[in-house]
């Protein structure tokens, strides 16, 4: 029975630096295993689309341009993704990974939430195809580089 | 008490009500009982202080689509087991590692079971859930107000039945 059992804590804290992280001003490095934005290696992909089947959030689209020449376009919806990494586990060919560097994915426009991977000309070709259809979602070519 | 003893105790207690015992895992016994026997069976378990009610699970076994060409079979008159074209309520009791399930089957047009709230008062939450989700009317449960579904949810629409494919509401 005593009054003010936390006196020690509060008096020590008065002379200590607050633990609050001043996030946008001071950034801590993200841990190596952090699951950030999905990465895609078209050279390893076989176009089996198991990742698309297993994705719980419909966050991945894979379009096969030419299977033999390994020309694939992967479209990744950062806003739909739940960052569970089931696709990375499901992929038998290590074509998918998750970045621990690109994780500040908030954006002011919806367009930034769609990231496309693949060869530039394939993306452009698909982009033209898609934009011909009325009401289709716009495609933003390259992943935004965040530092 | 080890597992076998617990199983034995449950089987003895439920013997008078048992109609069939469809499945058996190491840590699970299932007992099919008649609807009318439900309160008595629950009371037998509670009086013997055999475990506690862990959950009441509803199941929907819709009549399978007849194969092309085959004549649709008539559903049997007296519901006795986890058969098709029935709703089923599973009263799951837990004692240590063992789960004892009392299975009660009802038809769609006579979907009602007696309440066990007079024996286990806290069962009312599960019973209300069963009513809202499967449309199995629990006769005698103290409060029949909405528990989980929104206040403006249409009556006689039971979301966990297999026939439910979503609401067609103009937003």
């Amino acid at each position: 029975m005593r009054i003010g059992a936390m006196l020690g804590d509060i008096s020590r804290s008065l002379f200590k630096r607050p633990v609050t992280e001043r996030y946008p001003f001071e950034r801590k490095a993200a841990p190596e295993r952090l699951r950030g934005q999905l990465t895609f290696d078209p050279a390893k992909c076989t176009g089996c689309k198991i990742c698309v089947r297993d994705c719980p959030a419909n966050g991945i689209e894979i379009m096969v341009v030419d299977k033999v020449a390994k020309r694939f376009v992967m479209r990744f919806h950062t806003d739909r993704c739940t960052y569970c990494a089931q696709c990375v586990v499901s992929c038998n060919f290590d074509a998918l990974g998750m970045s621990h560097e690109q994780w500040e994915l908030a954006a002011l426009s919806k367009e930034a939430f769609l990231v496309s991977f693949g060869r530039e000309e394939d993306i452009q070709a698909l982009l033209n195809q898609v934009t011909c259809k009325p009401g289709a979602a716009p495609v933003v070519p390259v992943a935004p580089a965040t530092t | 008490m080890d597992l076998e003893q617990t199983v034995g105790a449950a089987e003895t207690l439920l013997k008078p009500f048992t109609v069939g015992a469809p499945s058996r895992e190491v840590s699970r016994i299932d007992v099919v009982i008649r609807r009318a026997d439900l309160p008595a069976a629950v009371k037998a378990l509670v009086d013997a202080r055999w475990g506690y009610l862990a959950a009441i699970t509803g199941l929907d076994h819709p009549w399978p689509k007849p194969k092309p060409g085959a004549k649709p079979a008539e559903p049997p008159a007296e519901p006795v087991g986890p058969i098709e074209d029935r709703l089923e309520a599973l009263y799951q009791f837990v004692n240590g590692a063992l789960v004892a399930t009392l299975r009660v089957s009802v038809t769609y047009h006579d979907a009602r079971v007696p309440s066990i709230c007079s024996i286990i008062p806290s069962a009312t939450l599960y019973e209300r859930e069963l009513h809202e989700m499967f449309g199995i009317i629990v006769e005698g449960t103290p409060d029949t107000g909405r528990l989980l579904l929104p206040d403006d949810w249409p009556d006689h629409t039971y979301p966990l039945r297999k026939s439910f494919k979503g609401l067609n509401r103009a937003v």
Partner: protein
Amino acid sequence: MDTQQEPRKTFVVPIGPQHPALKEPGHFEITVDGEIVTAATVRLGYVHRGIEKGVEQRNWAQAMYMLERICGICSHVHATAYALGVEALAGVQAPPRAQAIRVLVAELERVHSHLLWLGVAAHEGGFDTLFMYSWRDREMIMDVLEGLTGNRVNYSCNVLGGVKFDVDDTQADAIRRAVDFLEPRTHHYLKVVTTDETLIGRTRNVGKMTFLEAETLGTVGPTARASGVPRDIRVDSPYAAYPDFPVKTITATAGDLEAKFVVRIQELFESYRVIREILDKLPAGDLAVRVKPRVPPGETVSRVEAPRGELFYFLKSAGGPNPDRVKVRTPSLCNWGSVLATAPGHKLADVPMLIAGIDPCFSCNDRLVTVRRRSSAETWTWAKLRQYGIEYYR
């Protein structure tokens, strides 16, 4: 104020659906006479997201992530319960190393959940300092879990048939450091909740539940254990790696709020011990076995001990690529009855702490809003309300 004709009007204090005491929506109607509570009712479902129906439309792998999102605090136990159930149906067993990692993450999650609860319960009682400190220390565990699994909440550590990642030496060291830091802190919190005069004034003999009440109300987890009912699935029906890393059931006898504090804090020590033991004796081997996308027909029951108590899963497979029925019974549902039963007779000021005492868990969704303007009451949809707001400030 009373008239002879009219019966005495009751004064009902609504707690929820939106209320500062509840971080998630639930609705309690507390009938009071002055400050004394005379009756309490509950209305749930503000968080009903139709998950049980939703998983019937997803395949076995996808369903796990949906179930994991039932609760943000104890997400791992949901995935574990489901994965264990599916593995039982499919007739496979995750390798021992995977089982041990599941238990490791489960115990880390228990630590973070109990520390979170300690803070929330202190906040309900108006002891914000304890709240801030316990959450500060909880941050250690969050960091460890982030480093270990890659996510701070919804760790997605399980896959069907095992786990996704290994625990290497750097991870193990980080976990050991965090536990070494937390253990003395936890001793300190135990001392605070059992000796601080003002806190004891709010917890001792408040919400007392006897052994018999706890048993008949069907309470589970720390709520039951605080009343001396030794219900702990980790002991009663060991799953995953608990047969190899046994835990001790912590019980108290008083059954009041203080006992709930003490039981939860002492469970932390048990968790620290298990975490260290697993790190020392992590079995070698594979991380996962393959589970086919179609699961053979059958029914099973999977039970695990969530931080809040027994989590009960009933799984039924019809042999297809999707689950046929997944029934989830969360521990909070069992414990509501105890709040409603113990609240009458207490003071209104005790009710938030009583609600917090069982560590309840809801979640959130959009609702309709009723707006009253002068005389006409009408129900507005969220979209209409939003439009009104846009036009008002135009």
